[in-house]
């Protein structure tokens, strides 16, 4: 069994073991810590010289289906710089999510199902980011989605949870179906004899798909992946789902799983249909401004912390789209770095919000206030998380957003192109996020304390350790973005070497 097979199947086998009766929390935590160690091992032994969509490291492949008239199917895994960063993200968030899982104190009796689901989500996400076979890339993502639906429907907060579960199921199910049609169309148009992503990319380079068809394929992939990333105007599933999902599920979905859509755009849509991407650039820019500005204003109007965080995560996806729309090395690298940074910061925020919901019994702004005085550790940690989310220098988010803006504004001509106008518009998003985050911080942690509010004891180590792991990673990458950029740059470079010719 290769390293990556171990990485992907460890959580899945752990889920099976828990399902069959192994001690739930111990097995889940053990497996996720092992996953984190394996992902560190991969990062330390990663060569930054190799480039391109197809120069996989730690590669392994097993042929599973050879049939005349049907592309070859193999269980193939491999890492390049982009997927390595996302594997690190998944592993970090998985450990944190499993660790803080007891924060949902209502879920005692069914903890087995609960931990099985978390492990399946984690294993599915790791599989989706490391698979180099188109089918498994798609299938592992589906595997991760299904338990999220179940978790929201069974253990979600609030009266509306079944309705919310249906909404997210229908949205993401339709998104996946559109995506599947786009992918099948692309494989068919390339006349590929294999589902291998590297083979497909090479084919798209040597014999590009007809421009008109590329336009359709890109549109299908963009909308399909876009729905998964909560692209405006297909975002309405996201905030209620995150608000009502059990805390670790919200952390995993908003932090990790949602990044699959962006990953797919970078890994598949841009290389397979570059002409289509150019053709639809204007649409992409308008929609991403919708994400940043319109959803930004919606976020300001929220009255509950979990909803606000949900909308803020929708909003920040706009920057990632901007980096991808830039279509150059700086912009796309920035988008990848942003996926990492946003994943950690939103997981941290949802973790803290979940802890607060459990202790205070609710997250309405008007029922909370002045908490920082009695709970200083919580206040400090939340402050850090809020600053990270706003994109203050010193956090990974800052480095990523700067790269995205630089990439989007880059270019040799002097005039204002569409994307430059869009960048100017998107910059206002920074102000908007500062407004809602700082306002939320002020109402919850500063000011007078409502009389009815009871104060629980401060964050204990059980909640502190996992969240600190996320914070330390955010700060480390914030101060030294090159920790990850050394992996991302060559991979993105390779992507453009392959596609630009």
């Amino acid at each position: 069994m290769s390293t990556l097979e171990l990485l992907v199947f460890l959580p899945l086998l752990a889920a099976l073991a828990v399902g069959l009766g192994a001690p739930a929390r111990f097995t889940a935590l053990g497996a996720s810590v092992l996953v984190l160690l394996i992902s560190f091992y991969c990062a330390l032994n990663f060569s930054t010289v190799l480039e391109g969509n197809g120069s996989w490291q730690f590669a392994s492949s097993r042929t599973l289906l050879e049939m005349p008239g049907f592309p070859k199917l193999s269980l193939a895994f491999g890492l390049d710089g982009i997927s390595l960063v996302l594997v690190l993200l998944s592993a970090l968030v998985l450990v944190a999510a499993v660790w803080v899982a007891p924060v949902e104190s209502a879920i005692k009796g069914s903890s087995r199902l609960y931990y099985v689901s978390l492990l399946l989500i984690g294993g599915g996400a790791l599989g989706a980011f490391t698979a180099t076979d188109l089918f498994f890339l798609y299938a592992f993502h589906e595997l991760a989605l299904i338990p999220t639906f179940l978790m929201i429907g069974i253990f979600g907060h609030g009266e509306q949870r079944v309705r919310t579960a249906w909404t997210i199921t229908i949205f993401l199910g339709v998104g996946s179906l559109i995506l599947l049609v786009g992918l099948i169309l692309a494989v068919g148009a390339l006349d590929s004899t294999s589902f291998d992503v590297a083979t497909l990319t090479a084919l798209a380079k040597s014999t590009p798909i007809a421009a008109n068809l590329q336009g359709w394929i890109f549109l299908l992939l963009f909308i399909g992946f876009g729905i998964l990333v909560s692209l405006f105007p297909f975002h309405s599933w996201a905030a209620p789902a995150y608000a009502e999902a059990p805390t670790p599920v919200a952390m995993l979905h908003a932090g990790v799983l949602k990044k699959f859509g962006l990953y797919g755009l970078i890994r598949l849509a841009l290389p397979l249909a570059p002409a289509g991407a150019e053709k639809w650039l204007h649409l992409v820019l308008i929609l991403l401004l919708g994400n940043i500005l319109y959803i930004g204003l919606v976020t300001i109007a929220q009255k509950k912390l979990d909803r606000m965080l949900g909308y803020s995560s929708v909003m920040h996806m706009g920057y990632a789209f901007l980096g991808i729309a830039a279509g150059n090395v700086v912009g796309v690298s920035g988008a990848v770095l942003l996926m990492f940074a946003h994943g950690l910061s939103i997981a941290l925020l949802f973790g803290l919000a979940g802890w607060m919901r459990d202790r205070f019994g609710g997250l309405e702004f008007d029922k909370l206030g002045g908490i920082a005085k009695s709970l200083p550790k919580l206040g400090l940690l939340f402050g850090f998380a809020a600053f990270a989310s706003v994109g203050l220098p010193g956090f990974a988010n800052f480095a990523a957003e700067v790269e995205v803006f630089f990439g989007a504004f880059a270019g040799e001509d002097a005039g204002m192109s569409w994307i430059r106008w869009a960048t100017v518009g998107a910059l206002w998003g920074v102000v908007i996020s500062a407004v809602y985050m700082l306002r939320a911080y002020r109402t919850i942690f500063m000011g007078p304390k409502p009389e009815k509010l009871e104060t629980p004891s401060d964050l204990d180590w059980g909640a502190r350790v996992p969240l600190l792991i996320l914070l330390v990673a955010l700060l480390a990458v914030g101060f030294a973005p090159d920790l990850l950029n050394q992996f991302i740059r060559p991979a993105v470079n390779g992507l453009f070497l392959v596609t630009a010719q």
Partner: protein
Amino acid sequence: MPVYYLEFIVVALGLVMLMVDAFAKLEDKRSLARLGILGLGIVFLLLFTVEKPAATEGVLWKFYAAPDSLSLFFKGLAVLCTLLVLVMAVEYTPVVVEQTANPEPGAHSQAGLGEFFALPVFACAGLMWMASANHLVSIFVSLETVSITFYILVAYLRRNVGSLEAGVKYLILGALSTGFLVYGFAWLFGVTGSMELPAISEALAREGINATAALFAFALILIALGFKLGAAPFHLWIPDVYQGAPTPITAFLSVGSKAAGAVVALRLISPFLASSPLVGKVTAILVVLAILTLLVGNLAALPQRNIKRLLAYSSVGHSGFLLMAMASAPRESLANAMTPATVVAFYLGAYLLMTLLAFLVLSSLRAVTPGEDLDAYRGLSKRSPFLAFALVVSMASLAGIPLTAGFFGKLFAFKMAIDAGQWGLLVAGLIAAGAGFYYYLKIAVSMYFSAPAKGEETAIRVNPLTAAAMVVLMILIVAAGFAPGLIVRLLS
């Protein structure tokens, strides 16, 4: 061993079961079913030892095709299906006993049970023969062997009005379809001058064939096969019969009868598709039939509240995907193309696994809860996490979610339609798959999201044999979803 020994062994097994039932004075007749399961298990293993003879001269081979991987695959399906139906029948025994008990004092408490276990074994022999049938007469006789056993089995619960009604409906419509089949055979014989499939194939491919008469024969045969397959608009019997028949027999009908229809359709339709004067019209008819079946089956399943009716419409929908593959046969026989036979066989293999898993859960539940309404499944995850999980795996596969066998079945069918440029079929297929997601998911939702009904919170125990069968089916579904090559390899 020569391949036809297997049918003899299966028939002998059925006779032995009847004899034991008549003379051995068994206290618990469920041992008969266990005997049958054991015997069929041995036959299944023997399938792998079949010789493939080089020379196939003689009278027998006129009626019986030389064993190729396709016919062996279908024989395997028949044996496996019957075996699992017997497992279900063991679970379902209390219901059969209650509905067939002999009220006379001193009668055996399980008086009517022996034949319930023995008849499926005879049907199995018919199904196995059909997989190799090579001659219109042997196709007809094997098909009738299966149908007549089914007429009895569907109406088996003789104190249950629903079962009797289902039996009468099935008998009348079945007899009608047999009429169409024989009439179609007669026309086919008239057009081609032969009853042997290879000769028919040759005659149809000749220029100057009487195309009108050949198409008439095709239409008659297609009506009869549409009845067996459950293709719209010949599906009207399906919901009522599925609902009324004893659950194991519903499963047998749903898988065995469909596999029989499919294998006969593959053998009878391919000569028409290979004939250049006919292929255009035949394809058009098949496309229309496939689109109708896909849409009717899946859309009619949406509002169903009774789980057996829901599965009945879903079974119609799955026939649509089978027809989709058949209608998309490549015009020229390319070496590098998927054949309808492979796709249909794979689809049926996957369909067997997931449908029988669903029916195993159904019959385990039927033994403890009287209702077959969807409400009976509310909160099942709390009463029996194992059964709920098994049903979710089966529903996921039926819906075609990736990493289950069902996904590849659908994907292959779609790929064939794309390669053949059948865009209408593709759109109908997408609508059908989308609708499928909804109604299969509905069952999962009511099992996991709602609490059990009042007074039905008790845990459910599953009998070990059934549980083992379920685990094996679940493993196979996921394994074929990861590595469809496992099944495809059996077919080449």
